[in-house]
């Protein structure tokens, strides 16, 4: 039997996280589980998690504009922020992997059929570790919006995919970072699958003049909050 407290936890979670089944996003219809989820007690199996040392991360892996002979086309941007756990503590030395479309809205992926040009100077994949204070920083170009076949005239708002590990199995997160003021938000079922407007805002980066470098690149701030090793879900919702 579930205690009243855990009901409250589940309710609070639903405000932040999208459901598995969101019929407007057509691909969820055959992939969302329908049977009830089983509550997993907190044990070492999920309060521990993989660590990635400096080993796999190259010096230039966080600069997507310097992976080829020439520079990619598009608006050069800096994306930076904090990675924090649910108690506001920095998540240090933690792997972040990102991927994105090029400035024309085209992924280098073989299954991307959008008839927009590929950019020979842009692969669209990067990674870095957070520093000792939990900060990360990428240099890239602003991705373009692109069409998909979810419904008639469907377009994804410009976004960067981010994959994070945090400090425990339970803090693992894959999300998307959006750009402020995008007119496509209201038409995008993936964005809209997060119902709470406050939670939606936590997926949108903010333009930041301090991060912006004169004569060189616009700056965007995007802070990320993961579930902590020990934090209870309710503490996450302060």
């Amino acid at each position, binding site marked *: 039997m579930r205690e009243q407290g855990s009901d409250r936890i589940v309710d609070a979670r639903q405000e932040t996280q999208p459901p598995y089944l969101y019929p407007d*996003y057509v691909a969820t219809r*055959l*992939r969302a589980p*329908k049977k009830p989820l*089983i509550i997993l007690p907190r044990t070492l199996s999920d309060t521990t998690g993989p660590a990635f040392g400096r080993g796999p991360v190259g010096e230039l892996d966080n600069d997507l504009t310097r992976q080829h002979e020439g520079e990619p086309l598009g608006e050069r941007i800096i994306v930076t922020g904090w990675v924090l756990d649910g108690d506001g503590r920095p998540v240090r030395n933690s792997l972040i992997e990102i991927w994105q479309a090029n400035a024309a809205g085209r992924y280098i992926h073989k299954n991307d059929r959008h008839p927009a040009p590929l950019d020979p100077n842009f692969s669209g*994949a990067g990674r870095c570790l957070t520093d000792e204070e939990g900060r990360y920083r990428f240099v890239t170009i602003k991705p373009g919006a692109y069409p998909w076949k979810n419904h008639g005239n469907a377009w994804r708002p410009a976004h960067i995919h981010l994959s994070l590990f945090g400090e425990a199995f339970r803090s*693992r997160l894959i999300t998307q970072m959006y750009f402020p003021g995008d007119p496509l938000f209201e038409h995008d079922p993936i964005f809209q699958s997060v119902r709470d407007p*406050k939670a939606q805002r*936590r997926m949108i980066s903010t333009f930041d003049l301090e991060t912006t470098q004169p004569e060189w690149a616009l700056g965007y701030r995007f802070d990320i909050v*993961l579930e902590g090793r020990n934090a209870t879900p309710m503490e996450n919702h302060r």
Partner: protein
Amino acid sequence: MTSGPTPSQTVGPFFHDALLGEDRSELVPPDHPRAVRIEGTVYDGAGEPVPDAMVEIWQADEAGRYADPTDDREDLPHDPETFSGFGRSGTDAAGRFSFFTVKPGPVPGPDGSLQAPHIMVSIFARGLLKRLVTRIYFPDEGESNGGDPVLSSIEDLEFRKTLLAIDEGGVLRFDVYLQGDNQTAFFEF
């Protein structure tokens, strides 16, 4: 400052170059004396294989210790340099994923209980707005599976059985059914 957790969003269909550029499916070399090969197929609700999923695993080493500094049970032998406990495999055109690993030892459970050897699993895919979490248990661990607090918490025996790999003579099969009558059991925290 942001307050509240960052919402999850789907991994989408185009993650391969960024997340699968390096092969992380071999936690031990295939010729390791106690290597276990795990194979499976991910199926959707129409029974079709899912060709664009990513499966990640996290597990303790053979002694039951996690390669994480917070697992500080110094009495257990441990070498995080040789066994990271983390693996990642994309699914191929037929929805198949695979790993080479070793069977983990038992690990502590809630309230002084012992958990049977198991592997934590995350599944990401287009159409999954957040990851799915499940566990792989081992078919030759009958007694210890019987006392496992997580397995025992699933009352429906058929549903419980979806967490048990099947021994196919040298290969352990763990198919994942996202939906339907034989849906795999998934967890939430």
